[in-house]
């Protein structure tokens, strides 16, 4: 649909837009973030000023931003998709050239007033770009090889740049996010089959490459894979984190050990308990009830997004919503899968819960676009 179509269709205008905001989604996001505040308060030993308070302030700002973006007409996002994508590519290049090194990887761009992590921005930008592309592309060309190649290239450019940092987790997420939008856009399932087969081959190649001149991954990445496959092999070294995390998680039982009573978290057995491993603290202190509740809140967020996308007759808005929800899904699934021992440790925060500014801001802005798509859906 074009800008003119919107004029013709019935789209809420002005302040009346507020009535069309997806309020259940707002409520769900707040609920998830509140889990985060509670756990950040707990892992700081009952002090609010360490992590919980800054996080609350960021969440407040992010919420305001989200609601502001909801008022922006949906066609605006389609208009900026290409320039936004190009800017993100430039930022990624800048990170490779001038970025700050943190935790062994070059991910941050210090803008003076703000430390930006362009790879996070890229995840949203790529989704936006692909949604715009498939909105523009006539349906009968969607599965034609040449037209399939375009989004693959669009995804592989940032993926390659991210791998330079190196940040394997983000690279995989970019590819997976791209895959979700392509899947939603209706690309033939044969392509997906082929890619999955290819990945299986690649995994084999990666393992075969270990210790040779053409080694495909860094040593620490191999070690993480080892640890994942057998965490008990080095319980005090690389496997320590995951072993302790699982003890914490498992010991939570049905109803947990009680708020601020988690012995694993209290006694500092848990690593990175306020960032990547915050889910373990939740599971330890609130047990299955707490952990499963959070999982269900995440599922409900996905559900509301999906419903919004499926009831939206605008193809761009639908694809955008599914893409953002899909990225959000990847975030929490990877993190929870990691602490549950189902995936290797890749350094992915738990969205809306882990302590950290960039990701929460970007996520809330992305949900602002979802809201914009929801508000401006043609009736």
């Amino acid at each position, binding site marked *: 649909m074009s800008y003119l179509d919107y004029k013709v269709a019935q789209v809420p205008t002005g302040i009346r837009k507020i009535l069309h905001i997806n309020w259940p989604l707002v409520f769900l996001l707040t609920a998830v973030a509140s889990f985060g505040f509670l756990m950040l308060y707990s892992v700081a030993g009952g002090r609010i000023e360490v992590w919980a308070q800054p996080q609350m302030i960021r969440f407040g700002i992010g919420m305001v931003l989200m609601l502001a973006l909801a008022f922006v007409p949906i066609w605006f996002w389609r208009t900026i998709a290409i320039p936004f994508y190009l800017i993100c590519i430039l930022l990624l290049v800048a990170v490779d050239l001038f970025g700050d090194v943190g935790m062994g990887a070059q991910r941050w761009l210090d803008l003076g007033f703000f430390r930006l992590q362009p790879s996070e921005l890229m995840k949203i930008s790529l989704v936006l770009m692909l949604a715009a592309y498939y909105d523009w592309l006539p*349906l009968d060309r969607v599965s034609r090889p040449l037209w399939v190649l375009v989004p693959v290239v669009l995804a592989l450019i940032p993926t390659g740049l991210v791998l330079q940092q190196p940040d394997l987790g983000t690279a995989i997420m970019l590819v997976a996010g791209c895959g*979700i939008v392509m*899947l*939603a*856009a*209706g690309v033939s399932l044969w392509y997906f089959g082929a890619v999955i087969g290819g990945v299986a081959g690649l995994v084999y190649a990666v393992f075969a490459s270990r210790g040779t001149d053409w080694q495909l991954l860094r040593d620490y990445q191999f070690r993480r894979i080892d640890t994942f496959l057998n965490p008990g092999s080095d*319980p*005090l070294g690389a496997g320590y984190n995951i072993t302790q995390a*699982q*003890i*914490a*998680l*498992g*010991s*939570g*039982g*049905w109803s947990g050990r009680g708020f601020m009573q988690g*012995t*694993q978290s209290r*006694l*500092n*057995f848990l690593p990175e308990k306020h960032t990547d491993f915050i889910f373990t603290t939740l*599971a*330890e202190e609130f*047990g*299955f009830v707490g*952990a*499963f509740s959070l*999982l269900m809140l*995440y*599922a409900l967020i*996905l*559900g509301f997004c*999906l419903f919004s*996308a*499926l009831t*939206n*007759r605008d*193809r761009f808005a*639908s*694809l955008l919503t*599914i893409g953002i929800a*899909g990225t959000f*899904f990847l975030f929490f*699934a990877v993190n*929870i*899968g990691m602490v*549950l*021992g*189902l995936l290797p440790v890749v350094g992915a925060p738990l969205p809306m819960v882990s302590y950290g500014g960039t990701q929460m801001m970007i996520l809330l802005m992305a949900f602002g676009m979802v809201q914009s798509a929801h508000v401006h859906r043609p009736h």
Partner: protein
Amino acid sequence: MESSRSVSRRGVLIGAIQAAVIGVLGLRLRSMQLEQADQYRLLADGNSIKIRLLPPARGLILDRNGTVIAGNEQNYRVTLTREEAGDVSAVIARLRHIIPMTDAQAAAVIAEIMRRPAVTPVSVADRLTWDEFAAIALNAPALPGITPESVLSRIYPQRGDFAHVLGYVGPVSDYDLSRIESPDPVLRLPEFQLGKVGVEARLEENLRGKAGARRVEVNSAGREMRELSRQEGQQGAAVQMTLDAGLQNFCTQRLGEESAAAVVIDVTNGDIVAISSSPVFDPNMFVRGISGPNYRALLNHDHRPLADKTVQGVYPPGSTYKMITLLAGLEAGIINAGSRFYCPGYLQVAGRRFHCWSRGGHGSVDAIQSLEQSCDVYYYELAQRVGIERMSEMARRFGLGMRHDLPMSAVAEGIAPDREWKRNRHGQEWQVGDSINASIGQGFVLTSPLQLAVMTARLATGLKVEPRLIRAVNGIPEPSPEFEDMGINPLNLRTVRMGMDAVMNASRGTARGSRVVIPEWRVAGKTGTSQVRNITAAERARGVVRNDQLPWNRRDHGLFVGYAPYDHPRYAVSVVVEHGGGASAATPIARDILLFALNGGLPPLDAYPPGQRGGVEELFDSMNLAPNAVVAQSGRARA
């Protein structure tokens, strides 16, 4: 629209995939948290890695010459762990073959062991000799559950000498923990020691040090299997005091069994070189855990050994306050050195008769003579002209009625009274009689021995000497103080100093008996006798009862303040002897202390007037001085 339909179909597919993944996560969560929860709970409870704190060695406290006055000693002790011992009574019975233990002690130990968790080591006996300790280690196979270990414990080598100023350490009580915000976890270690009073308490943060830690692997019962890593703690900072162990020991010995206090200040830098309160107690008793009867004996002793009389005790300064009154008059320009008052032995003011200590009176007296003979009437006259405000203002300039900032417990403020103070405190207006009483350091005026010593140091130098107790922390010297000028007319100060010199050295001086005959060590000072009871008119008519006929606690306090050498002041001293019967109880003590300080050891006998030498020698011989304090008595070592 067909585009939407394609999105819809694929949307449902994506939703299904996501739901499946969430389902897998949920199932995994369920399997870990519900099905294997017990197993994980066990792992968490007996988590194989525990952090054990290593208590840090407490910082040493040194005297100004580096002598250790609070150190640490190895304390050999044995602990018993019930879980490993099996039959506790049998093990204790066997242990009693090696170390002496009464039936009551053994019963108490067994009760304590039974009260604690089976895996917690309980101290069975401590302060063992090396032989006992070695014997236990040798017999270890017959003593299951017994662990000989050596820990550090505080020791005060000079025993009572520094008991009041340093204070002591003791086990951490719940009360201590409740007072500390976010207490260091090391405080929760069993039998960890914390400064309770005095310097030990006030410099706790410096002295404590930082705990080390061991990471140990333990089994699910909590028993250590092996040590994985060890990080040694950091000993607390060494604190060097301004005190001199030799002089401090001499002061303590010289005060003897009197209920008394002595403070010696180096007037050039404010260093408190000795601060002694007697009788003393042995702080080591508190470190080791004092017994009930011993503690009650200290508490009920009428000489109050536990009180630090140097800073906590406040006394009417008596005539030692006259320098303040005199200076107030001189500085206000109301009198000059030559001004005279007539003393008939009393002064009639507002229908009340105020007596001079000399019933016959001193006749016509000038400023210097008023100090020399300690004429009270002179000060009664002066008080009416100067007024309490100027007197107390002068007192505060000399550090009376204010708290000196020293790292000791409960440092007293004393009282330099004025009109407003009386209105607030007693709700009454100031009376002229109050001024008259205050002028001779009686009535409302209260001072601590520390304040008197500071006052004397300021009189001797004309500088605003601030007392200090800490010379260096962790080897970093405290900055040398620069004292500002008091801003008092040097002529007036000179008058007061000449008066103080006359007290000791002039023909009618009240302390002439305690003069020093070596000119370089000439002492100037002032005696004081302060009443602790009111002498009624009837009593006075009968003739005042002599002090030695009164019960001890109704006798007058004896005070003396002084400094030496007169020409180039180095040390100022104050001595207060509670219920000593009069200044004569304090004056010889103060003189001996000053001479000891100047000589850096026992003073030579030729410093004393010839007639006193025999008695002094006898006194010194009878004293039980610490070995390092004894310096060759023959000849005169020059400082």
